[in-house]
C-alpha cells in the first residue's frame, strides 16, 4: 500500500462535511485520516501542492461501458480507466453488456483483476439482471455481490418483461443492490434513431417518442411500489420521466435517477444542425429543448441524484457509417467534468458543492460503495480541479480508444488537475503506470 499523502493548500469542497474553504487533506494507509485547515506536516507524507485548485472527494462515474471483454477494439479496462483518470474520475461503474455478458461472477472477478492491473481508477462492475441480457432468467445476484458487483442492470436494453423486473426488484432486496433500468418501451421506440419531434419530422427520420421512456418508467415505478425494491433510472431524458420520479419519491419509494451531461446540454435541434452527424446519436436520444430545460431545473432543485457520462466508446469506423446505420452512444469520461464546470457551475445553474454531490457523493450512496466524502475514514480518493484552466475538447488527444463525441472543439473553462486513488497520485497525463495491486479493494 502506498505511503502517506498530504494535499495542501487547496479549496476543499465536500458536501458531506458542509465544507467549502481552505483545507488540507491527509491520507494515510489509503484512507483519509484528517481534513481541515492548516494540518501539520505529517512525517514521511509526500505533499501535493493544491494551491489554486479545488479538492473534492474522488469523482465516481456510475455509468460507463468499458467494452472489455469482447470489444477491445472500442475500449479496454486499461484505456477506459485511463480516460477516467484523465477526466478526473477515481472510480467508474461499468455496465455488463460486454461479450460475454457479465452474467457470471467470473466476469466480475476478471474485470476487477484487469482494473487492478491497469491501476488508473477503481472499477465497480455492474452485473446483468438477466442471463445474456436476454430478459428471461435472473443471474446470480448474491454470488455477483460477493464477487464485487455493486448493482444489476441490463443496460443497453431494458428489462422489458414486467414479470422479470418485478422479480429482479424483489430478489435484489436480499443483497441491497439497486436495479438500474435502461427505460425504453421497445414497441414504441421501434426503428427510431432520434427524438420524435419537429426536427425528426423535417429530416424524415424515424423518431423515438419521449413516451417510449415514460411508459417504461411509469410501469417500473408501479412495480417498485409493489415490491419495495430499490430502483435507479439510468440516463433519464424526458420531462415526464422526471415528474414520475418526483412523484414516486414523494410517495416514499426508493428511487434515484441520473442524467448525462449531453442530455443537459444538447437537444434534437443540435442533431438537426449537425446534419445527422453520428456523433450525435445515442440512446436515449437528445430530446427537445423543453425536456432539456426540465432536466436542468431538476438538477438545480435536487430532483436529480447523479450525473453520469454513459461513456459508450465506438470505433471511428463505426461512426463513419451513416447516422441510421451507426451504433448508439458517445464517449464522456474526458468531457463530463469540464462540461459541468463550464456550462452548469460557471453559469450558476448549480454550485460546486452540488456538483460534487452529483458526481461523487450521490453515486457512492446509490451504489453502496465507500467514497464520496473526505471525512476521516473515507477512502483516500481525491479529485483535483482547476477552475481557471481553459481546455478545448480534442478527440485526437483522448486517452480513450474511441473518439465519438459531439463536443469536439468546445472551449471550456475548468478542468481536472489530477486524481488520487487510495492515497496514490494517478499520473493521468499518460506516464507509465505503476505496478499491479496498488489500489486496495474497497468494498466496505
Amino acid at each position, binding site marked *: 500500500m502506498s505511503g502517506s499523502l498530504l494535499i495542501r493548500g487547496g479549496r476543499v469542497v465536500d458536501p458531506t462535511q458542509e465544507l467549502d474553504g481552505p483545507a488540507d487533506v491527509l491520507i494515510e494507509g489509503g484512507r483519509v485520516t484528517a481534513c481541515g485547515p492548516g494540518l501539520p506536516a505529517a512525517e514521511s507524507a509526500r505533499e501535493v501542492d493544491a494551491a489554486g485548485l479545488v479538492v473534492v472527494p474522488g469523482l465516481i462515474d456510475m455509468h460507463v461501458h468499458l467494452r472489455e471483454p469482447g470489444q477491445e477494439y472500442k475500449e479496454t479496462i486499461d484505456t477506459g480507466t485511463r480516460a477516467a483518470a484523465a477526466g478526473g474520475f477515481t472510480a467508474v461503474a461499468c455496465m455488463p453488456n460486454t461479450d460475454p455478458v457479465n452474467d457470471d461472477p467470473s466476469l466480475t472477478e476478471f474485470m476487477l483483476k484487469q482494473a487492478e492491473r491497469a491501476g488508473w481508477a477503481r472499477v465497480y462492475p455492474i452485473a446483468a439482471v438477466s442471463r445474456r441480457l436476454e430478459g428471461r432468467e435472473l443471474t446470480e445476484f448474491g454470488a455477483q455481490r460477493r464477487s464485487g458487483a455493486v448493482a444489476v442492470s441490463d443496460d443497453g436494453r431494458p428489462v422489458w418483461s414486467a414479470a422479470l423486473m418485478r422479480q429482479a426488484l424483489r430478489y435484489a432486496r436480499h443483497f441491497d443492490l439497486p436495479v438500474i433500468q435502461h427505460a425504453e418501451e421497445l414497441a414504441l421506440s421501434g426503428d427510431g434513431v432520434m427524438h*420524435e419531434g419537429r426536427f425528426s419530422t423535417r*429530416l*424524415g*427520420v424515424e*423518431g423515438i417518442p419521449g413516451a417510449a421512456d415514460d411508459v417504461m418508467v411509469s410501469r417500473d415505478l408501479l412495480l417498485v411500489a409493489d415490491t419495495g425494491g430499490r430502483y435507479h433510472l439510468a440516463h433519464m431524458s424526458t420531462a415526464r420521466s422526471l415528474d414520475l420520479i418526483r412523484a414516486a419519491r414523494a410517495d416514499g419509494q426508493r428511487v434515484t435517477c441520473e442524467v448525462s451531461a449531453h442530455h443537459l446540454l444538447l437537444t434534437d435541434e443540435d442533431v438537426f444542425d449537425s*446534419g445527422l452527424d453520428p456523433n450525435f446519436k445515442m440512446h436515449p436520444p437528445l430530446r427537445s429543448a423543453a425536456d432539456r430545460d426540465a432536466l436542468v431545473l431538476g438538477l438545480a432543485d435536487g430532483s436529480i441524484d447523479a450525473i453520469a457520462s454513459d461513456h459508450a466508446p465506438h470505433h471511428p469506423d463505426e461512426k463513419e457509417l*451513416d*447516422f441510421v*446505420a451507426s451504433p448508439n452512444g458517445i464517449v464522456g469520461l474526458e468531457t463530463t467534468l469540464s462540461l459541468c464546470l463550464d456550462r452548469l457551475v460557471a453559469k450558476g445553474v448549480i454550485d460546486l458543492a452540488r456538483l460534487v454531490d452529483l458526481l461523487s457523493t450521490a453515486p457512492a450512496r446509490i451504489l453502496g460503495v465507500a467514497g464520496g466524502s473526505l471525512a476521516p475514514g473515507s477512502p483516500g480518493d481525491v479529485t483535483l480541479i482547476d477552475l481557471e484552466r481553459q481546455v478545448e475538447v480534442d478527440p485526437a488527444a483522448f486517452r480513450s480508444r474511441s473518439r465519438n463525441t459531439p463536443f469536439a472543439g468546445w472551449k471550456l473553462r475548468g478542468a481536472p488537475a489530477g486524481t488520487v486513488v487510495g492515497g496514490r497520485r494517478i499520473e493521468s497525463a499518460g506516464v507509465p503506470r505503476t505496478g499491479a495491486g496498488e489500489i486496495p479493494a474497497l468494498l466496505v
Partner: protein
Amino acid sequence: MSEAVWQRGDLLGVAELSQAEILHVLDTAESFVEVAARPIKKVPTLRGKTVINLFFEASTRTSSSFEIAEKRLSADNINFSTSSSSLSKGETLLDTARNLEAMAPDLVVIRHAHPRVPHALAERLASGVINAGDGAHEHPTQALLDAFTIRRRKGRVEGLKIAIVGDVAHSRVVRSNVLCLTRLGADVTVAGPRTMMPEEPESLGARVVYSLEEAIEGADVVMMLRVQLERQARAAFPSEREYFEFFGLTAERLRQANDDAIIMHPGPINRGIEIASEVADGPWSVILEQVANGVAVRMAVLYLLAGAKSGEDGPTP
C-alpha cells in the same frame, strides 16, 4: 446566365435552393423538352462525362428516368444497385466514397434508404452528387419535375392552392414538394390520417389538415401520395378499403376542388387505394406528363451540375 444563378456542384435537397435557382432549373428544363420529340433523341451535351447511378434502394421509375436523361445527353453511365453491387450495407461512407472516386465519375446519382447519405457522400467526393431520394427526407428532382409540370399546365405556381394527401410521415416527396412549392409562392396544404402524420407536421412548412375533403376544397392541384403497402404500414391504417373510403380520391370528391384542378401522383399508383381509376385515367390527370417531364428536368439538372463541376457554362443543348 447559369453563371449568375447556378453555382452548385451538387443537388442534395430543395432545402438549399433559392427561388431563383429553382426557376433556373425549370427554365433550363423547358429547352430539353423538345429533345424527346426529335426522331433522334440525343444531344451531345455530356459527351465524355461519366455518370454513376448508385441505387442502394430499389427503384425502377427514378433510376430509369435518370438513365434515359443521361443517355439523351450522351453521357457514359453505369448503374450500381444493391443487388449487383459490393457497395452494400456495412461499408463505411468513406470507403464507398473512395471506391467511387477511383472511377473518376463526373456525377454520382444516389438513392439510399437512410436520410442524408447523399449529403455525407457529397462532402467526401470531388464529383457532383445528385440526391435521387434519401429515406423520407428529400427527393429534389421529383419536386422540381412536379413544379415544372404544374407550371406548364397552369402557367404559374405562385398563388395556387395545392393539396398533398397521404402518408406524410414517410414521404420524401412531400418534404421536397412543400419546400419547393412554398418557395415558389404556392399555398400548400398537407393531409392524411393522423397515424400517417409526423410529430409537429406544421414544421414542414405547410398547412395541415386531417381530412381529404378539407384539403382539396378549392384546390388547383391535388397531389396524391402512394400508400406504402410493402412497409410495416399496417399499423397506420386498418384496411385498403377503409383507406380508400376516407382518403382515396374519387371523381365525386374531386368536385370540391377547382373545376380545372389537375391531379398528380409520383407513382407508381395504387388503383382503388389512394386514387380511383376514373381519376387516374381522367382528363384531370397529369400523372404521365410528370413521368415525361421527369426526363427533361433531370436532363436540366445533369447539364447544370456537369457545367458547374467542370467550371464552364457547359455546352448548350
